[in-house]
């Protein structure tokens, strides 16, 4: 038997009083695709950060090719051939794609000058190997999350890494981009690259991996050969209990119309298409979940931003809430009217990192927590606590900083923040991005129960199965236009993908 390329031996890590990892040990074989599964807070990301030199103080030993490795930074890890693609992207938004790929390892001429052209040529090659034809001179900040992630992958590829760690790489990708990623992974594996693949998605894990290791609450649970196990067993190992395939109970009956959008358009000056959204109309009823499907750049996020008054340019068209015409030009107007938006990019647009869990939850409903002119901390606690228990947020009280929670629990805090505003319509922009199976199911149940309370919900998602599980109706956007709408009884993944890839010209 070949010796393992990575040996993890009794590694433990504490963050203050919280135990992130406890004596985790397992081996990774050269050339295999080893999936790491576990719920939020299971310690997957922490382990990968240790492996890639992001976290440098821990107990236990890490062996690469049998040698004990103690990285003092990511450079050391890169030197032995380990690269990581983080779940939360790390790009310098002000720099071009090429400059980001070669950041810290710039190609030079004459020793001091940046050879931009050579870097752009090399970047173009790398991107081409990812089936991506974005010009490498574009600024990273001008790209949507999906494309930014491809840049991160290209960056790792440029390091010629032997070991690639991917932390939920598909969480923000569309189906087409996932296919593209699968092809890239196949290519890497044919070159002998070892891949550690963290994911919540069972179909992905079973499609790609050779072996699966399950972590739970910072502890090693089991490693299984993919061929000898099934999704149900892995899920069971992850949660420590047997969960039935998602049964969210009966759908609530459709109530009155709560939201109507007519001919909503949003310009896109300086772009060939000229618009981000064109003549989009939709209706939403109380107690209903409307799913919005579409590829990256189809206008899902832009549509929600327009409804919420958060678009940078004013949209045209009509938005009616409960029969009253509104056209919010600032989120505060939308909020007052009864709309709520949970944003796609949690780190940048959602979380207040300088504040604690309780303050993050109460942020939008502080006016309800005052007595006289002053904030009442007991009322504020009451509001936040009600959401912690309602959404089952896993936290040691309201005082820990929000950053100490796992991604899924942070997301729950933000959903809770908006539920406290008693919205009529809840807009969820890819709410389960980076959220694990157990927490996802809970979020689905929450959404359903909110519907039964008479709320109308609009959900976008890059995962079609999620939309099919959750929605009562699914609307499809393609290139800023609405190309189809399905009742859930007639919707299939194939029909949706067909509509999402239909361009406006051909559908005419």
């Amino acid at each position, binding site marked *: 038997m070949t010796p393992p390329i990575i040996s993890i031996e009794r590694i433990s890590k504490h963050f203050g009083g919280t135990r992130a990892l406890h004596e985790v040990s397992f081996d990774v074989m050269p050339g295999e695709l080893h999936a790491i599964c576990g719920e939020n807070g299971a310690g997957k990301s922490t382990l990968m950060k240790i492996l890639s030199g992001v976290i440098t103080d821990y107990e236990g030993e890490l062996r690469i090719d049998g040698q004990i490795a*103690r990285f*003092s930074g990511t450079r*050391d890890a890169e030197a032995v051939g380990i690269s990581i693609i983080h779940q939360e992207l790390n790009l310098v938004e002000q720099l071009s794609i090429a400059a980001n790929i070669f950041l810290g390892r710039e190609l030079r001429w004459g020793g001091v000058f940046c050879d931009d052209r050579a870097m752009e040529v090399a970047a173009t090659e790398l991107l081409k190997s990812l089936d991506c034809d974005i010009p490498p001179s574009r600024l990273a900040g001008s790209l949507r999350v999906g494309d930014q992630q491809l840049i991160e992958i290209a960056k790792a590829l440029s390091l010629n890494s032997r070991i690639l760690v991917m932390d939920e790489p598909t969480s923000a990708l569309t189906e087409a981009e996932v296919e593209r990623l699968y092809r890239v992974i196949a290519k890497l594996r044919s070159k002998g690259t070892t891949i550690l693949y963290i994911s919540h998605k069972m179909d992905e894990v079973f499609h790609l991996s050779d072996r699966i290791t399950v972590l739970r609450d910072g502890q090693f649970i089991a490693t299984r050969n993919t061929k000898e196990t099934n999704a149900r067993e892995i899920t069971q190992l992850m949660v420590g209990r047997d969960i039935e395939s998602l049964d969210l109970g009966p759908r609530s009956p459709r109530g009155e119309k709560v939201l109507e959008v007519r001919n909503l358009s949003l310009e896109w000056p300086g772009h060939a298409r000229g618009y981000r959204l064109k003549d989009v109309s939709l209706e939403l009823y109380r107690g209903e979940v409307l799913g919005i499907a579409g590829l990256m750049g189809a206008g899902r996020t832009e549509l929600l931003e327009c409804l919420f008054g958060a678009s940078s340019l004013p949209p045209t068209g009509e938005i009616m809430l409960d029969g009253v015409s509104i056209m919010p030009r600032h989120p505060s107007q939308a909020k007052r009217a009864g709309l709520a938006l949970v944003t796609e990019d949690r780190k940048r*647009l*959602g979380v207040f*990192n*300088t504040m604690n869990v309780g303050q993050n939850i109460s942020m939008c409903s502080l006016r309800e927590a*005052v007595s006289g002119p002053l904030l009442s901390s007991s009322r504020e606690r009451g509001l936040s606590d009600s959401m912690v228990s309602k959404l089952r947020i896993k936290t*040691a009280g309201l005082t820990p900083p929000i950053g100490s929670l796992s991604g899924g629990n942070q997301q729950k805090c933000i959903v809770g923040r908006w539920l406290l505003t008693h919205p009529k319509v809840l807009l969820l922009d890819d709410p389960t991005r980076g959220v694990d199976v157990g927490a996802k199911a809970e979020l689905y149940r929450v959404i359903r129960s909110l519907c039964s309370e008479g709320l109308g919900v609009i959900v976008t998602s890059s995962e079609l199965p999620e939309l099919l599980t959750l929605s009562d109706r699914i609307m499809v956007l393609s290139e800023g236009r609405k190309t189809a709408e399905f009742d859930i009884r007639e919707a299939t993944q194939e029909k949706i993908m067909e509509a999402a890839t239909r361009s406006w010209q051909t559908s005419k």
Partner: protein
Amino acid sequence: MNNDSPSLLGRLWSSVEFKLILSWLLVVIATMLLDSNHTYWNASADSAQIVLRQTVLLGFFALGSAIIIISGGIDLSSGSVIAMSATVFGSLMIVLDPEGFKAGHVSTTAVILSIAGTLLAGAMVGTLHAWLITSVGLPPFVATLATLVGLRSFSRGLTPTVAGGKSQIDFPDDNLRNALKDVTAITIVFIVFAFALWFLMSRTVTGRHLQAMGGNEQASKLSGIRTDRLKWLAYVIGAVSASIVGIIFFADQGSAKPDIMARGYELNAIAASVIGGCSLQGGIGTIPGTILGCLFLRTIIDAVQKIVGAGADVFEGMIVGIVVVVAVTFSQRGGSKLIGKRYFSDEIGWSVIPTLGLLSGLAFLLFFGKREWYAPYQAILVGVVVVGALAVRAVLESRANSSSRV
């Protein structure tokens, strides 16, 4: 539920406020021991009054500055706003009661109107800042840099036109002057002002929103917070607090000389905020912390003055600089981690050692050098010792570094 949160004592120990109080006590005790005149023993009341006056004067506009910093901005203009406000206050009194101004007894109505007008002028400056930042879209640094330069020049232009060609306005009314600079009165006003701001920041929705905006402006806007209005509020508070100081400072100094008055004070305000625990990235900082920051800064300046003797205001900048560096280093990492950290293990570390040696030698000469023939040699010795000690440390650090590598 709260099992994991640290104990009350632990939280107290880790707070900036507590550390500042401890450091302040240390400074006071050290001064009592080191000051050859033992001023803090013999004339405690007088010393306290001097420090209090300076703390309060700094405190007013440092609190304004702190609110802007906590809300994610920066105000470089406070020194110029102080000079402008003193000028405007003087000019308004001349215009409203020219006879009284000359006779040395300005009428009460004119005084009240002038004070109101000066505060209004401050609010107008704040509004201008907010407009430049939110509507024109300038970065706060640039917007307030423009007024830092512009308002002082404006005040210099205004003074000769109202003061009959002179480049300064003399304070007209001795009774008024004594009332305005009375340390008890200004301390009471300051306490009221500080309490109001403390309530605003820690107990109101607006205060929470200001903090949130400083922490993550985009997320605040998407939470339905009117960030533009909050910015207006922050910059108005900042400018009005500087105007208050302008009025008091005019009385305190006895004349308004717009070319030199309160020059560079904006940096003291920012320094006090930072010492008091405000983060220049925004979102973090408290009012009590900032007040303690002012007290600590003014006390240490006063202490050095006492220890070194006359002419020590020359060293004020050096003290502020050193205190800011030390305070921020301490607040960024706990004291225990300071010792283990590597400071001199790379090229930059090596090359700073001569600078630090030179600085310590010069500082020794300036602070403690007696007029003896051997004083320069003493200073050189101190410099050499410092360089030697740092070099030893550097060698130890790089050894530790290489042994921990793979």
